[in-house]
């Protein structure tokens, strides 16, 4: 599990940072070129919107979950005792697994069909292929579903072990709390 956590972290950092820097540079070069050379960089808005933005929006979703950065309201559950809180949390995780599972499956179908027809848009006189960008979603949501599944399993096992661990709820917990054995 540790290995996968690190893999997700590295994947997010490497690809995510690269995309952020490319996005900055692409826009800066485009602006400079059209100011000083009267000719902007080809397909800047297409690349930014269809690749960089899709990447920046979805790639970090799984890593955000590892860091428990997805926003939730805790005020109404704070008064519950630990056991009840765990049930509520479990419900949230199960629902999340379902939703992200559906998202993963649905966006996978989209990616497949867009790949099959070689989806593109017109960018000026040239063809700008968009189909590869559709794959970013099933991959990102797949990772997210995977992380959430482990959350469900770990929460379940805590619940039945009677050993309640609040670490999962701490915002800086990098670890997924899977089983007692792994810790």
């Amino acid at each position, binding site marked *: 599990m540790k290995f996968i956590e690190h893999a997700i972290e590295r994947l997010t950092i490497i690809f995510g940072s690269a995309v952020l820097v490319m996005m*900055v540079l692409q826009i800066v070069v485009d602006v400079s070129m059209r100011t000083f050379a009267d000719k902007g960089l080809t397909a800047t808005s297409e690349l930014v919107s269809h690749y*960089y933005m899709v990447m920046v*929006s979805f790639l*970090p979703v799984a890593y955000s979950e590892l860091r428990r950065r997805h926003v939730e309201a805790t*005020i109404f559950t704070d008064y519950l005792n630990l056991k009840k809180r765990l049930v509520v*949390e479990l419900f949230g995780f199960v629902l999340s697994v379902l939703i992200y599972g559906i998202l993963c499956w649905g966006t996978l179908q989209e990616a497949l069909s867009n790949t099959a027809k070689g989806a593109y848009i017109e960018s000026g006189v040239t063809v700008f292929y968009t189909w590869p960008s559709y794959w970013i979603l099933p991959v990102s949501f797949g990772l997210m579903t995977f992380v959430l599944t482990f959350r469900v399993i770990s929460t379940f096992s805590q619940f039945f072990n009677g050993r309640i661990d609040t670490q999962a709820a701490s915002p800086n917990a990098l670890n997924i709390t899977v089983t007692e054995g792994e810790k």
Partner: protein
Amino acid sequence: MLEIDPVFIGYFSLVGVLLLIMMRVPIAVSLLTVSGLGIAAIVGVESAISMVSTIPYGFASSWTLSSVPMFLFMGYLAFHTGMTKGLFAAARAWLGWLPSGLAISSIGGASGFAAVTGSSVACSAAIGRIAIPEMHAMKYDIRVATGSVAAGGTIGALIPPSILLIIYGIQAEESINDLFIGGLALGLISMFMYFIVVWLIYLRSPSRLPRGANTTTSEKWSASLQIWPVLVLVSAVFGGLFGGIFTATEAGAIGAFFTLIIAFFQGSLSKSVFRNSCLDTLLSSGSLFMIAIGASLFTRLIALTGVSFEIADWIDNHGFSTLIILMVIIVVYLALGMFLEPIGAMLLTLPLFLPIIAEHGIDTVWFGLFVAKLLEIGMITPPVGLNVFVIHSVAKDYASLEEIFSGVIPFIIADLILIMLMVGYQQLI
């Protein structure tokens, strides 16, 4: 198939989202779940799955939205390199004698920032990461600190450029320049209202907004010397924007670029600073975009249910006076603003309200500003308050979500007073 009245599904969905959020289901998942189920109940499971799986791509693949991660990146870079420390050291030196000086500076900063960005999320993102740690260091009450920045961010969509006002102008066929002039006035008035809120909080309990230590004149000037990097950054962004070199959408990337360059020459751009800035940006966008997508999908559900048609019919059939109609519209926007994403909410409601407005001879420019202000209030109201989530995301180490929501309450009250003043103004003209 079981036939349920779609309008009922609409109202039920609002309750459903509320319940899930209260049960600590992540906001994005709550919105996605209810939207998916609602759409499935009205047009079938296949349509619902298709919508849930196509809208994320369509929503995120937007050139205009690209300013949001770019401004986040700029804010994080400026914070991690310590560039903004200088700015706030100067603010502290000069305004430290003034109680609540930093909160005032943050709101003022957000208003200045509003001139280079078209969206309030981007505005909150940039100012929040910069200002909140400083206010925390000054021992400000964290609720006031976060609340003032979350509310201050809403000025971003009022002071031009403003994506909301452009879309309104196109939909309502109104002069965008007129809307921008009005937006500038409304943004500045909002800023002063927020100043007053901060001062009132101070008057009631001075300990929540402590004064800084007194500084000597020479300390003041030496602190001022530290702000040159920020001045370079600000003049580059403002100059380029007003010089017609780049657009508000591009301003975020340009700002991030200059922050990187300045930090590089200052020697403050270490590997870990860079890594942390990237990571924070990614974590923030990873959580924010999913919520915005959920809110967008929820808007589609509300459109599908015909709830808005029903409300418009109800208004039409009652022959209300202009004043009552405006009150109903306020309630509708505040209610929808609790859940929906503002552009979607506007596109959904304008077809229904514009004819009513025309019938009652209400000025369309005024109405545009009125709607923009109401939708911006929605950005800070629970349960789905995008500005609050941004602030939460950039200041997670300092404040909980609930603290931020409670921190914005005084500012929402000020906004409601401003809305009433707008209605009063409308009744006079």
